[in-house]
């Protein structure tokens, strides 16, 4: 169940390869652009990576429990579009819109979980249906042409910086959100019973049920956490990306890629929140690097595809070698 246990012969040191990859990428970025070691460089990098990292941390729960959540990208879109419709340029509206959006994230996750658990629809199809539905809702809500801006109070989380901090000069608010959310999710996954139960039902649902795990409740919780993380990511993205009906598209796949880069095992049983954070940072670092190299968008796609396949192939190879 856990990464470190029961490896009969250890060829490689027990360090998650994603950290090696991240280090190599960061060194490469610094080599290309020495100003990256200044706070402006790496803080902006972290700020850009924050939504994906939060999303990946939520996705890890669903993947570890043995499912997929494809609905997060469209949920982000719905959160951004919905917030812009609800706030209606009224700065004070932020204080009830944000809790409402978080509740919506939890609600969407709960529906996903209920459909998977009680209608017994495979999560791939259930969340795919949810993705199509939410995209339609976002269009329906905004009439196809969402209004162009959110009030500054709403954009605070995604855009503002806290200045005059010792050592680093400034910290973006989104980085603080990132640390808090990922920290909480990591604690929940690796230090509580819920996390152990998520691992158990992903590994062997029947065994987990026989051992007394409330399988349905844990799975629904996993989907709700994923939905909540998508809502938070949406609030951050609304802050610095602006309003459109495709802000979230593609994020579901990037989140899964990040989780997989972090060693999460598809179809369940293995997954780590800090490693998913590493995966998200590595993925963002790759995109940053390709940007520096001046490579166009299509190349980015090809590289993402190759990395995705290579990461899983490497993980499978490693697992066969260690025999776990």
């Amino acid at each position, binding site marked *: 169940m856990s990464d470190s246990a029961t490896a009969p012969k250890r060829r490689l040191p027990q360090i998650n390869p994603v950290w090696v990859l991240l280090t190599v990428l960061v060194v490469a970025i610094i080599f290309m652009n020495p100003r990256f070691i200044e706070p402006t460089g790496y803080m902006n990098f972290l700020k850009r990576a924050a939504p994906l990292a939060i999303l990946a941390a939520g996705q890890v729960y669903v993947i570890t429990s*043995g*499912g*997929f959540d494809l609905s997060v990208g469209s949920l982000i879109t719905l959160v951004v579009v919905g917030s812009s419709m609800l706030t209606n340029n009224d700065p004070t509206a932020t204080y009830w819109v944000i809790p409402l959006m978080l509740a919506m994230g939890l609600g969407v996750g709960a529906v996903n979980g209920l*459909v*998977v658990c*009680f*209608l*017994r*629809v*495979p*999560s*791939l*199809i*259930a969340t*795919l*249906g*949810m*993705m*199509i*539905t*939410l*995209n*339609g*809702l976002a*269009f*329906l809500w905004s009439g*196809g042409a969402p209004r162009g801006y959110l009030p500054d109070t709403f954009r605070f989380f995604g855009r503002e910086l806290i200045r005059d901090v010792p050592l680093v000069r400034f910290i973006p608010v989104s980085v603080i959100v990132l640390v808090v959310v990922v920290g909480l999710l990591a604690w929940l996954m690796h230090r509580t019973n819920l996390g152990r139960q998520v691992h158990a039902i992903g590994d062997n*649902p*029947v065994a987990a*049920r026989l051992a007394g795990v409330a*399988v349905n409740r844990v799975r629904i919780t996993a989907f709700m956490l994923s939905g909540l993380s998508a809502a938070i990511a949406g609030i951050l993205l609304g802050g610095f990306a602006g309003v459109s009906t495709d802000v979230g598209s593609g994020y579901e*796949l990037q989140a*899964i890629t990040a989780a*997989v880069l972090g060693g999460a095992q*598809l*179809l*369940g049983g293995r997954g780590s929140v800090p490693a998913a954070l590493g995966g998200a940072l590595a993925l963002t670092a790759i995109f940053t690097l390709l940007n520096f190299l001046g490579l*166009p*968008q*299509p*190349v*980015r*796609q*090809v*590289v*993402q*595809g*190759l*990395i*995705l*396949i290579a990461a*899983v*192939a490497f993980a*499978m*190879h490693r697992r*066969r070698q260690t025999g776990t």
Partner: protein
Amino acid sequence: MSIAEDTPRRKAGFRFERWAPLILLGGALAIYVVVALVTGQAQYLTFDNLIAILGRSIALGITAIGQTFVILVASIDLSVASLISATAVLASVVMDGSPAMILPAILAAIALGGLVGLTNGLVVSGLKVNPLIATLGMSLIIQGCLSAFVSNFAGEVPAAFQMFAYGELGPFPVALLFLGLLAVMAWAVLRFTKFGSDIYAVGGNEEAARFAGIKTGRVVILSHVICSICASIAGLYLASRLRSGAPWIGSDGVYDLESIAVVVIGGTVLAGGRGGVWGTMAGMLIFSLIDSVFNIAGVDSFAKQVLRGIIIVAAVAFYAIRSKRIVA
């Protein structure tokens, strides 16, 4: 469809799994007729109109037949949409309006499909990469390569090749007959050949199939090749229909996810080993009937999307709710 049913549970009598696609299809047809009558548009109930409804989903049908093969071996193919775009562009660029180049273009498209399918199959069965990830990566690679070279309609399809999409044989469009023929061939392969029964065996339980002496890797690879070739045929059809190829026609049609939805609505189980081509055809009919219902009823296009998502989930729940297993 009947080789590897879950026999131990109910041997004789009414088998729900077998008839469920037909029940759903009957339901969709009934809704279609009722909506047409209620809105007073009986002109939609003619034979010609029924043919027209079918004609709109031929590309989806061809793709879904291929997708049936990979889902039966408990794999999945998300690369079909970008492959459709790639083959459509490739074919129309190679033809470039000259009738003499039709055959080379078709061969090139099918070769590309075969190559992609072979790669998918090797990565899935050789490197043991989860098929979802393997084909998703492949999809990104194809789409990236494609949009690096073309950004708009490229090439031109000669009039002779447009016969594929627009020609008619008696009352039936050529493409519809082709789809029917393809379905019959797929059914025959699954029903009567050793390869067909190997597919069900591997999909049902890969390890057991290997112990029984089946070369499971080969079966998985061949299924992926079939799936990709079907997708490239769908690309050829779309090139012929649009008279040219563009790098977005596959992703615009969402052929990857829709073909999977069609297969699953047709009663093929995502976990593999159960289902068949006729269910997929029923799924395709259900999809196009629902679309027509929306059109007749004048549903707003955004609301249509919302309903569509709900219907996909509901249709799958219709089968799945009876299963006792914990699903992934």
